[in-house]
């Protein structure tokens, strides 16, 4: 039996703005511009927007600030913040509100100028049982998880380095990626990079960039009249077990195992059905954990799964095809960019390349794509599955 929300809502507009560096602009500038660009992309007037979803690290009430800036009086205004995966949950909430008939046009937006503003800006309050030991979060928590994972499965830093190497190879095909023209990476480059928090070196860590993004979602019936082919939300699942890394039940298994199962169930699909896989790679360890937890390979097997360029351009499974948080863009909360890459790969199949990419950057025949978000310290996991209309 089909889930009530399966395929009922669709993304009909997307926008990226201020990718990399956006000096002289603010987070609200980027969010508002991204929303207007995404509406233009959809062919829907601003006045039709009645659902506003937004989160970032600078606006405590982002959907209120964004609505004020654009003069929207929303029916649903939501800032729910579970870190970088907030936007995947926004998509699920938007689909719910659309299907219930509460709203007709939802926008989901993000903007950050952390790079131009001087560096990474944590969204976290001090954690009461951890702050005393001076973790430099989020990296300390990811490093702890990585140390446990490497020890438990006998994985080396060299093997894990395949992740940033593959991400860079994708970025080298994407002119919008921050590292597009910075050349390829080798395993040796990654391992030799300055150590930040063992076992994570500088090239195991995501970029610190600026960037804004937005998508527009409507019910599938309305999506027939929009400018581009709609990309349907086929399934979505949310799960989290912990806020502090010390409360993570098993450092080698994330809640993506749960969020993924929920999303697959709603979609009626499995990992084997995915043509393209976008995973929130804040750190190299993320990609390994998520490939396993989302069912692409067995636990502890990810480095063997990705060997010989399996997730790199030309490999068997296209993963993080924009270059990822490691080599494309990472303005602090990267989830919306992950989702837009999944949607864009499908749109490239349906409508032709939405943006210029070098040969191979758009993966032919992508019709079903997974976009997985991660928030906090391997905490909030949200899996979304998007598809071409014919799959619904």
């Amino acid at each position, binding site marked *: 039996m089909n889930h009530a929300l399966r395929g009922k809502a669709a993304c009909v507009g997307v926008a990226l703005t201020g990718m990399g560096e956006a000096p002289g602009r603010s987070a609200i500038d980027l969010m508002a511009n991204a929303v207007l660009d995404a509406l233009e992309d959809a062919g829907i007037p601003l006045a039709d927007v009645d659902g506003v979803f937004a989160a970032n690290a600078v606006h405590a009430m982002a959907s209120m600030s964004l609505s004020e800036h654009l003069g929207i009086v929303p029916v649903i205004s939501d800032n729910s913040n579970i870190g970088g995966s907030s936007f995947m949950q926004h998509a699920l909430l938007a689909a719910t509100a659309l299907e219930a008939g509460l709203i007709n046009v939802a926008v989901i937006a993000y903007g950050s100028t952390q790079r131009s503003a001087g560096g990474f800006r944590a969204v976290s309050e001090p954690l*009461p*049982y*951890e702050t*005393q*030991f*001076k*973790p*430099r979060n989020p990296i*300390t928590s990811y*490093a*702890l*998880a990585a*140390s*446990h994972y490497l*020890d*438990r499965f006998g994985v080396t830093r060299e093997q894990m380095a395949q992740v940033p190497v593959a991400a860079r190879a994708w970025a080298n095909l994407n002119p919008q990626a921050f590292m597009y023209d910075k050349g390829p990476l080798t395993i040796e480059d990654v391992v030799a990079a*300055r*150590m*930040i*928090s*063992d*076992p*994570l070196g500088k090239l195991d860590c995501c970029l610190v960039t600026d960037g804004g993004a937005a998508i527009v979602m409507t019910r599938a019936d309305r999506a027939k009249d929009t400018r581009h082919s709609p990309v349907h939300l086929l399934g979505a699942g949310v799960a989290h077990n912990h806020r*502090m*890394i*010390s*409360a993570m039940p098993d*450092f080698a298994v994330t809640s993506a195992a749960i969020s993924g199962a929920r999303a697959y169930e709603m979609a009626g699909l499995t990992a084997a059905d995915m043509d393209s896989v976008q995973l929130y790679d804040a750190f190299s360890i993320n990609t390994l954990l998520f490939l396993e937890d989302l069912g692409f390979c067995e636990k502890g097997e990810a480095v063997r799964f990705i060997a010989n360029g399996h997730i790199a351009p030309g490999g068997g499974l296209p993963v993080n095809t924009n270059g990822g948080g490691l080599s494309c863009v990472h303005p602090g909360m990267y989830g919306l960019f992950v989702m837009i890459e999944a949607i864009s790969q499908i749109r490239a199949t349906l409508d032709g390349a939405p943006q210029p990419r070098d040969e191979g950057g758009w993966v032919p025949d992508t019709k079903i794509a997974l976009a997985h978000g991660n928030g906090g310290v391997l905490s909030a996991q949200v899996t979304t599955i998007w598809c071409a209309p014919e799959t619904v």
Partner: protein
Amino acid sequence: MTELGPEAQYRAFLAEGRFMIQKSRGSGAYVFYPRVAEPVTGARDLEWVAPSGAGTVYATTINRQRPEKGGDYNIAMIELEEGPRIMSKVTGMAPEEVKVGLRVAAYVGELDGAPAVLFQKAEDAA
């Protein structure tokens, strides 16, 4: 006298030099960090108990820092013999020597003037 909440009570014990964790009377399961109820069951039957202090390094990292800023330091995740995990650091050895699986023992020491649960190599504790 006002009854303290779990976090305040934990810190009050710590100020007395005692490391205390919680245990559910019903399930017998140990709980750390201190909470108002046992997670999952919601049972508000937690009592304070002294853990054995024995634990194992479950995960470890070295926060790399320039010497003029204080140099590299260890942050470790310790799995207590009773089950729960606690963030701390292993003292008395170089951060590079702290390995996953190392047997450690808790003691109440001081970090930046505040009492802290710290760990040292188990064989050094005896």
